[in-house]
């Protein structure tokens, strides 16, 4: 097979961080290459160098055997390289067609000829079976539509080397299969396809070869047919690891939270949560699965008092030391805390919501407790001591507790956040995508911490995106789809395919989905019903 791209000795640093160190690898036409590595191993950086976003500090790039300089995304297009970024590069207020032709030289002296554009878009869509409305605004699209648009955009530009950065993170198993089919079609067309991922089963199912990066270094390339999950993990992590997540049996399950008919309206005036009802128990981990953006965030925020649900919604908290439940709806986070509810929350956006990015660990420790006491002045000693304790206990790597958390690595940022939330001795602990972007070691450390909380009798709610982890870690899994509960399944019996179906249930059954949703809820909550 012909070499499409050869990279030689690529090095790239950001400040103190070496994202890529002397990496050499080859991408071939007519095959799918997986670029595998843990988060922070430099996969995206390397591919951003190919797409002209970053410029390497050292190294050479050969395209079709000729040495080239890719100094801007335009250079990359000219070489036929197209990248589908993990964070979509789309202009929200533009239509699909406008996004597609962005930056392209026009025919007819620069006038916009939308007819010709739409014609060409349609041809591409027909070839691969995409469904895109050229005049739909991006802000009206779902996540998977946006991703399709990104792919069409790249194909429209005639790219024959396609790079997809973690494309499946936002897709259901079924949508993922469809995407893989498209990738295989592209391969058949003689294009070179690179998929960046850290999910082993995807690597095994779609790619022909796998190149592995670890901590910015190139480890090696193997043919997929010779690889196993274990051998790849070993190359990825650098040592033998067990991939089993521990799941202790729940003890002393007590009802802690009961959500009834929770309805939340989104900022655009459309409901984002519809008639959500479930219970969370102390001593168990309740998983929440769903396509990204179908209500997970809103659900946690509603429970935490960050959004105001609609009338008739109920979120009751059952205190350990009293027998009367407390209503949380209509109370602000501070009022909830003042009621003595120990509710901890690890949000998805760590630096933008859970922490103050420019402050050090010490100042971040007091984020939720700074207003304690009647003094006008702030008390800095206790948070400082707490910060030191968290730093030692969770092995946070930081020069000092005053060092801005923004400059810490993703894993350390998460340790600071989880450390603070656990230090508050919660009775309910909610986490959103707690291991996103973390390396395997830190991920297992987080699973362990969650399990410890579970054993202490805390009601843990775990919103996750990796179905394998959800199935291995959680006692029960609640599945959300388009803001509704489509089922609550037992983690010990659930299958990925089953959860995948529940994740897209509503989109498929246009009418009567409410009925179906309810039926499932009652059918599968037997685990919950047992201890009333």
């Amino acid at each position: 097979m012909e070499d499409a791209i050869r990279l030689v000795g690529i090095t790239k640093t950001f400040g103190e961080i070496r994202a890529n160190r002397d990496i050499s690898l080859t991408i071939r036409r007519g095959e799918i290459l997986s670029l595998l590595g843990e988060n922070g191993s430099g996969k995206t950086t390397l591919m951003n160098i190919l797409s002209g976003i970053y410029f390497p500090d050292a190294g050479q790039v050969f395209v079709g055997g000729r040495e080239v300089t890719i100094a801007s995304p335009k250079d990359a297009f000219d070489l036929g390289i197209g990248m589908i970024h993990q964070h979509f590069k789309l202009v929200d207020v533009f239509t699909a067609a406008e996004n597609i032709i962005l930056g392209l030289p026009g025919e007819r002296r620069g006038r916009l000829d939308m007819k010709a554009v739409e014609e060409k878009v349609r041809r591409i869509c027909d070839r691969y079976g995409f469904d895109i409305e050229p005049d739909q605004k991006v802000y009206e699209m779902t996540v998977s539509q946006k991703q399709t648009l990104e792919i069409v955009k790249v194909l429209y530009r005639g790219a024959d080397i396609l790079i997809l950065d973690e494309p499946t993170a936002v897709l259901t198993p079924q949508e993922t299969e469809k995407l893989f089919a498209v990738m295989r079609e592209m391969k058949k067309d003689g294009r070179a396809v690179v998929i960046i991922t850290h999910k082993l089963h995807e690597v095994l199912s779609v790619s022909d070869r796998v190149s592995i990066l670890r901590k910015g270094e190139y480890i090696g390339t193997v043919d997929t047919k010779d690889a196993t999950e274990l051998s790849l993990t070993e190359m990825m992590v650098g040592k033998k690891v067990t991939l089993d997540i521990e799941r202790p049996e729940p003890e002393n399950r007590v009802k802690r939270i009961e959500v009834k008919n929770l309805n939340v309206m989104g900022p655009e005036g459309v409901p984002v949560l519809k008639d959500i009802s479930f219970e969370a128990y102390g001593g168990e981990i309740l998983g929440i699965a769903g396509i990204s953006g179908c209500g997970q965030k809103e659900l946690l925020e509603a429970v935490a008092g960050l959004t105001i649900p609609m009338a008739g919604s109920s979120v009751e908290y059952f205190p350990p030391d009293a027998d009367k439940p407390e209503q949380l709806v209509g109370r602000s986070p501070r009022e909830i805390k003042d009621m003595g509810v120990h509710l901890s929350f690890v949000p998805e956006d760590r630096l933008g919501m859970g922490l103050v990015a420019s402050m050090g660990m010490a100042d971040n420790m007091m984020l939720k407790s700074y207003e304690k006491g009647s003094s006008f002045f702030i008390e800095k000693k206790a948070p400082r001591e707490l910060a030191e304790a968290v730093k030692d206990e969770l092995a946070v790597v930081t020069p000092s507790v005053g060092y801005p958390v923004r400059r810490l690595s993703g894993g350390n940022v998460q340790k600071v956040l989880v450390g603070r939330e656990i230090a508050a001795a919660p009775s309910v602990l909610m986490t959103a995508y707690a291991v996103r972007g973390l390396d395997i070691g830190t991920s297992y450390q987080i699973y362990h911490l969650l399990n410890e909380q579970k054993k202490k009798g805390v009601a843990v709610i775990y919103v996750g995106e990796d179905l394998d982890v959800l199935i291995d870690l959680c006692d029960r899994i609640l599945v959300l789809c388009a803001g509704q509960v489509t089922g609550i399944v037992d983690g010990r019996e659930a299958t990925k395919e089953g959860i995948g179906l529940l994740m897209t249930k509503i989109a498929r059954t246009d009418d009567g989905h409410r009925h179906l949703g309810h039926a499932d809820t009652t059918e599968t909550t037997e685990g919950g019903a047992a201890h009333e």
Partner: protein
Amino acid sequence: MNKAIEVGKSEHREPFLRIARRDGTSHGRKIGVRAASIVIALILDALFIVVVTGLNPLAVYAEIFKATFGTSLRFMWMLRDMAALLCIGVALAPAFKMRFWNIGAEGQVLMGGFATAMCMMFLGQKLPTPVLFLVMVIASLAAGALWSFFPAFFKANWNTNETLFTLMMNYVAIQIVAYATNILRGQASSLGTINMGSKIGWFPKLLGYDFTLNILIVAVLTVAMYIYLKYTKHGYEISVVGESEKTAKYAGIDVKRVTIRTLLLSGAICGLCGFIIVAGNKHTISTNTAGGDGFTAIIVAWLAKFNTFYMALISFLLVFLEKGAGQIASTYGLNEYIADIISGIILFCILGSEFFLNYRMIFRHKEEKGGGVK
């Protein structure tokens, strides 16, 4: 940067010049870059003076220096004007720290000054002096706070763009003052000094100067604001809201409340500054009472990165130059607008120098640019 890229494109070579983020900057570098930027600005200013006027720049700089340090009275004048500018900077500090672009200081100061002047005119004869001063202070605080309340209220509730809102409020204030002075002055061409003979509502002479009190009040405010931002719960809330509203909500901070509270404080101190200017210096009111200080103070507050002591330093630099420019204008018969040009050049240089603190330049073959500017 782009030119450089094109150079590199023709052959496959590294671009001539690339830019990379700098991770943290040492203290020494910060001082070095800032000092270098001021030196370069002074050289540019000197060039300008030579080319345009043909004067010896060294003699001109000597004049500039004399304008502030020539006599002790001149020094006190400099301090008085610096106090006014610094006071507005201090007022803006909490708003800017909260990432609220209060461009409306000019109007807030003007309203504070207007309220003060009205008290002096209409209550001066009726109230005993201590009560009068109390009323003046309260009125000026309230007027300034009122002017910042509207943009704050709409920002807090509907996220209305505050940069543009506060900017517009300036002109509403200016027109109100223009209207009032029009009505009050009758046939006269200007409003004139209020209570010229009785000096009612004027700051008392202290330590030999009429405006010692101005300087003292601002000095106290500068220290107090530093403490407020750094060591109080309010200050902590302001930092969190400024960093991320989402984080603030997550932490249980009432963002609306903090936004409005902080802007009321900011506007009130601006109003107080109007009081200081009117009662402690100008003893009259016109649309020029704030004299553009409300805009200059924005630059002061931004460059000082909300640290009130740095603000004092930058205010000094700017007022020093302004005084100097006035001096050379009168000595050499130039027009006084030379001050705007000189300080404009200085501001451009200081603003541009920030780049060398946040980014580093990488030339081909890995040569790294050192501490220089431009």
